[in-house]
């Protein structure tokens, strides 16, 4: 993995092409427009978060990156390559991994089998190594290794969903609402793990969250989405300080 030596400021100067670039993406469900032209960049080594209310289109953007539903207009490119028209499984093979909304772990399969499914892209080449790696990150999973995924708690399932995504050695990790329905302590554990992955391995993370406070504190940069359009963007700290953001997503919200 690339070493994280560059600071944000340096990267801004060098102006590298972003790892993930979303330009003017419009997505429709039938005739209903869900994304009305979204522009968004994720640089290599960054944690970028997208916050917004229910139904703003956050998860739709996440799924559009993965090609289902497909963007009707606009371009999504990963590492300089246009992936807008690729089928989902081929997008995944470009080493983009996803912990989808609702976790979607394989409920009847064991934790071990779930992790194996995650490693199937690179033909299990680094399986044992990666297994130790995710166990170090989430020791709980090691205890549950032979347990059926569906019998675990929500927090453990979320850890499994992230661990399964990591098994494919992604360059970009997409996380869709990892904090959904979890106790604050577990949310902290998961966010700490994401932070650690980013710091120690330089993993690029794109995080979609409703839990704006935690997400913006974690992220290098953030975007705010309202009704299918990006209304604000900036560094995590900048957004946290903005009165509009505070009013809409933070006051009386999660702390």
């Amino acid at each position: 993995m690339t070493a994280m030596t560059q600071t944000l400021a340096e990267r801004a100067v060098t102006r590298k092409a972003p790892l993930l670039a979303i330009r003017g993406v419009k997505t429709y469900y039938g005739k209903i427009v869900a994304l009305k032209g979204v522009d968004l960049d994720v640089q290599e080594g960054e944690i970028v978060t997208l916050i917004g209310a229910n139904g703003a289109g956050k998860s739709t953007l996440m799924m559009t990156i993965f090609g289902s539903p497909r963007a009707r207009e606009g371009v999504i490119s990963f590492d300089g390559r246009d992936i807008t028209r690729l089928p989902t499984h081929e997008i995944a093979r470009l080493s983009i991994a996803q912990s989808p909304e609702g976790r979607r772990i394989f409920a009847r399969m064991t934790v071990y089998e779930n992790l194996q499914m995650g490693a199937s892209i690179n033909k299990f080449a680094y399986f044992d190594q990666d297994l130790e790696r995710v166990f170090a990150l989430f020791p709980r999973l090691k205890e549950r290794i032979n347990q059926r995924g569906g019998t675990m708690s929500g927090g453990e399932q979320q850890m499994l969903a992230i661990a399964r995504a990591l098994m494919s050695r992604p360059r970009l990790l997409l996380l869709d609402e990892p904090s959904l329905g979890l106790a604050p302590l577990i949310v902290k554990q998961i966010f700490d793990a994401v932070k650690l992955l980013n710091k120690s391995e330089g993993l690029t993370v794109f995080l979609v969250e409703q839990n704006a406070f935690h997400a913006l504190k974690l992220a290098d940069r953030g975007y705010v989405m309202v009704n299918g359009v990006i209304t604000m963007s900036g560094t995590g700290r900048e957004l946290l300080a903005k009165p509009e953001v505070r009013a809409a997503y933070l006051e009386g919200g999660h702390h």
Partner: protein
Amino acid sequence: MQIQASKPVAAEPVSGGFDIMAAVKDAGFAALVTLGLSFPILAFRTQEDISNHLIVVPRWSWPITAAILVFVGRFAAILFRSRPRATRAPTLPKAPSASATFLIRYASWFGVAALIAFPMVMVAALGAGGSLKWINNYGIQILIYVMLGWGLNIVVGLSGLLDLGYVAFYAVGAYSYALLSTTFGLSFWICLPLAGLLAAFWGIILGFPVLRLRGDYLAIVTLAFGEIIRLVLINWTDLTNGYAGISSIPRATFFGVPFTDDDDGFAHLFGMDYSPIQRTIFLFYLILALALLTNAVTLRLRRLPVGRAWEALREDEIACRSLGINTTNTKLTAFALGAMFGGFAGSFFAVRQGFVSPESFTFIESATILAIVVLGGMGSQIGVALAAVLMIGGTEILRELDFLKAVFGRDFDPVQYRMLIFGAGMVLMMILKPRGIISTRTPSIFYKEQKAISGSLVKEGHG
């Protein structure tokens, strides 16, 4: 299942008391319902009078008997249920003894050994004539359905794709052998792989249009596919001879040596006395080998990435795709492989019968095979085999129950009640073991130790 949860707490006998009045009331109500329901069905029978007119003869005793039976049964059930649970000694799971563990571990090998010995034992015990029925009607017939069940298990049990038209592939296999052997004179051993390939091809043909469908929608389309194949077989008379079917299909030979009484027949070649049972025994071993091949391939594939992809596909298709699994290919391989084994079974069917017609490939066949898979426990190989024995063997057993004639009168034919008993069995099964006979899923791979996964944690009827 919600049965446990929805049981009212009050029904749990804390004091061990038994309310007779309530029980009588409950049983009385059940009897009344029975009376109402059975009255139009049981209380009259039609009979032809002397001038061939149908007349209605009342038989009041029947619904009344039914009501009394239900009353007694219901009362007994309530009585039984209200017994205080505490009096029952708690049964601790005993550690199985060494010999029991040995038996369990090698159970499937004992089963195979027993099956290999089965025809010999039968012939030794009952003679060539007496054993024919057992080897043919029980042995071969059940094994065909075991094989079909295992084939469909790949599609329904492992991949979770509900297929109601599986019999189409059975038909493709049967007609492939029938047409190839009668038109081109190809031998069974050449036709067998060809039939499998053709069936697999049709599996893919079915697979393409249904790639985006799941559950109910998939079931409807596959049902239609099964009917289309049957209707083509009926109406394409130039090729298939329509309803009349294809007869005089070459019978099974022992790798080219016919089972005849001739000088170059099987019996003479091996210095035995000729007996028609020899062909039947050969067929038995043939279908046994084919069924075991199906099983071996399935078990092997379950441990390979494609097999695990099938199971993951059953669990969550979207998650599969986002993990880089090509769900199109995964589904098509499941359809193709399942169809291929159906095709093998079909060509065996043709070589065994020597005659095929569209009548053998009706929807009820698909339903039976699907019932075997569901009854056995989706995805469980042993469960499917047990269910096939139960369903097909059970039907055959009904023919044997002559003593019932002594009870119910001379013209009582238990076979007529096949569907009734079958239906009741299914209902009972779904109440007692809603996830099938073998409801545990053994992980195909494991970390350090292997552990079966309890069926009570498994979502049932998930397809």
